[in-house]
């Protein structure tokens, strides 16, 4: 069994392990890692007694587990969510960060994602959505755009991608957000999610610098909150979710919190 580590950190603290990241140079996962670190540091200043843990899946995002100095489980592909649920049920006070890729959350582990919205267990889920299976070298995922080509499908993707924001809204998620893979956006959305009691779904639009580079996402994004979006309005949230279909290369891409409404929390019902 593995060596125990202290997850109630004492100052001075680094939330990073000594492991040197093996992500590609310029990988947007560095942004998500740094954003998480900054969030944890600010949390530590606010409340040094909080106990933190993490769960991750399999894919490039899963390497977060080796770099973040938090206890937890680097789970099977697609299975981070039920592991997280089991942790919260057993230890409701645990502050839990859960990381998935688009393969984990939208393909192999889809059933758990839908049910996570139903259970509304109090943890934060970040889906590193780079719209491609990067670690297995560029195969399309369920959110890859129409026409995308790789070695496994030279004729190009013929299916429309799914829209995870709509799926989460329809499934009853109590906190639905999308951010771009940027340090400040990650930190800010985690701070918003921290105030939310329940399941926080956060999709992180993340270009893959090798297999799915950012064409023009950064030119197209805008922030819902800056535009005065009413996040308590479900119908409006659905409309906003439809603005970007994960395929078009000219539509606007809304970021921020689409929808937020607290409801019962699974572990408090048990």
């Amino acid at each position: 069994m593995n060596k125990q580590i202290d997850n109630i950190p004492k100052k001075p603290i680094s939330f990073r392990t000594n492991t040197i990241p093996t992500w590609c140079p310029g990988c947007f996962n560095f942004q998500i890692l740094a954003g998480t670190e900054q969030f944890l540091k600010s949390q530590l200043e606010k409340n040094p007694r909080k106990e933190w843990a993490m769960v991750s899946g399999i894919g490039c995002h899963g390497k977060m587990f080796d770099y973040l100095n938090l206890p937890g489980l680097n789970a099977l592909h697609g299975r981070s969510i039920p592991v997280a649920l089991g942790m919260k049920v057993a230890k409701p006070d645990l502050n839990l960060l859960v990381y998935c890729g688009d393969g984990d959350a939208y393909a192999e582990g889809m059933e758990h994602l839908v049910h996570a919205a139903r259970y509304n267990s109090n943890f934060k889920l970040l889906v590193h959505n780079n719209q491609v299976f990067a670690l297995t070298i560029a195969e399309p995922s369920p959110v890859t755009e129409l026409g995308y080509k790789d070695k496994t499908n030279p004729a190009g993707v013929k299916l429309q991608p799914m829209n995870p924001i709509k799926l989460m809204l329809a499934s009853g998620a109590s906190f639905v957000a999308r951010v771009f893979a940027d340090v400040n956006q990650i930190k800010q959305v985690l701070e918003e999610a921290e105030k939310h009691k329940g399941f926080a779904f956060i999709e992180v639009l993340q270009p893959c610098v090798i297999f799915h580079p950012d064409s023009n996402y950064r030119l197209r994004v805008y922030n819902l909150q800056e535009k005065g979006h009413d996040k308590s309005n479900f119908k409006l949230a659905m409309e906003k979710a439809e603005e970007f279909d994960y395929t078009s290369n000219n539509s606007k891409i809304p970021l921020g919190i689409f929808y937020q409404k607290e409801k019962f929390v699974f572990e408090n019902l048990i």
Partner: protein
Amino acid sequence: MKVTIIFGGKAGQGPNLLSEVVSRGLLGAGYYVFYSREYESLIRGGHNYNILTFSDKPVYSNESQIDLLVCLDNNTKSIHKNQLKKSGIIIEGDKGNMFYAGSVFKILGLTLESLEQVLKKLDKYEELFDETKAGYNFEKRKIALEKTKNRFFNDELINGSQAIAKAAISSGLEFYYAYPMTPATPLMMELGQMQMNKNNKHKVIELESEIAVINASLGSRGVGSIAMIGSSGGGFDLMTEALSLAGMAEIPLVIYLAQRPGPSTGLPTYTGQGDLNLALYSGHGEFSRVVVAPGDLCESLEKTNECFTLSEKFGVPCILLGDKHLGESKSLVLEKPSINKVEKNKIWPAKFNSYEHDYNGIVTEDVKMINQKFEARMKKQKNIELEVSKLETYKILGNRNSKNVILFWGSVKGAVTDAVKDFGIDAKLVQILYLEPFPEKIKTELKDAKNIIIVENNSTSPLSNLITQKTQIKIEDKNKILKYDGRPFFSDLLAQEIKRRLK
């Protein structure tokens, strides 16, 4: 003296409650009782029945020939009348199950007062006594029973599922995760009901799939709560990727695998022993596991407890291998089980990893570290083998000096022991309790045998293969007594089969 009764009817007519009422009456009069149930995969209608065998001596199985046939519908008579002995009695008519409870009490010479007491204990007195009394007074026939002086201190009839539930709670169970699947569901129901007792701290949680179930249990145990999961073959199949994760992450895990005949959906509501190899070999990669198969109620209590102890001590998945017959047949627990306090292993907080990882739980691809971790797992296997060898890994029953050996595992135990005891068979019975780690020293019990017979509720006899693999002793095909129709063995028919092989 041994008497067998079949209570049959449509699902919803209540043959199960009828068996329970009669069984309790018989217990009160000092008779040992064993009853199994057969039901179809439907909710109302069809043909359900219970077989009750009782005796003035301990009884662990049913016989095929019956003394009394209680028909709650016409179908029951046509299906079972050929099992009736010449002197057998049929109860039939258009009355309800409780009317016939009265009739059966009268036929067996049980008193009306004892019937009253049984109904009171079941909280059914007010609504049902008048009907049962009418049945009692109406009935005039009789089966003369030998008197018995037996008095039981414990009058609680339980099934294997209830035994496992009790032992799991005594072992410190905090969470039971499951997705409904027959015949594992009775354990889920039992643990669900036992949540109502304020002294019990465990919670039963139903999740969206068996995959969620096993991963959630690893999450719960990872952060420090003792968890158990259960399913039958198909659901267990879905769990096997995470079974391998438990092997890699070394998180304690107890799995109840309740067998029913496959392949595929197979026969959902019947019994079988077709999943031995599934329990032994499922999951990718090389990792340790424990597979233990109780054969009766006392063993269900003890082996469940041992699963928790071993999984905690070694961070190893322990599979409790049962089946529908063990899980749903009821009798008394006649021995006092030995249940030990489970020492919870403090493993949290730590990093657990599905990848090969170093001692800090961080992914490694380093040759030296990989070798160290494989060697650590091999050493752990040796430690588990050593620890298990201190437990009761097999049992020798019957005549220890006999040159005839009967080998078996799991729930066929009841029929095998009754066949040998009640039909005058000279044999040494070897019951394998631990299938993994396998007690290789049983070779000494087999090497002088003239005949080795194997009894299994399956068609390919996986135990024979395992015995050959571990002891180099080959079991002849003609000595394999195999039953794969989804029904348990009857002791009388099994005795005939054994005798035929010993000629």
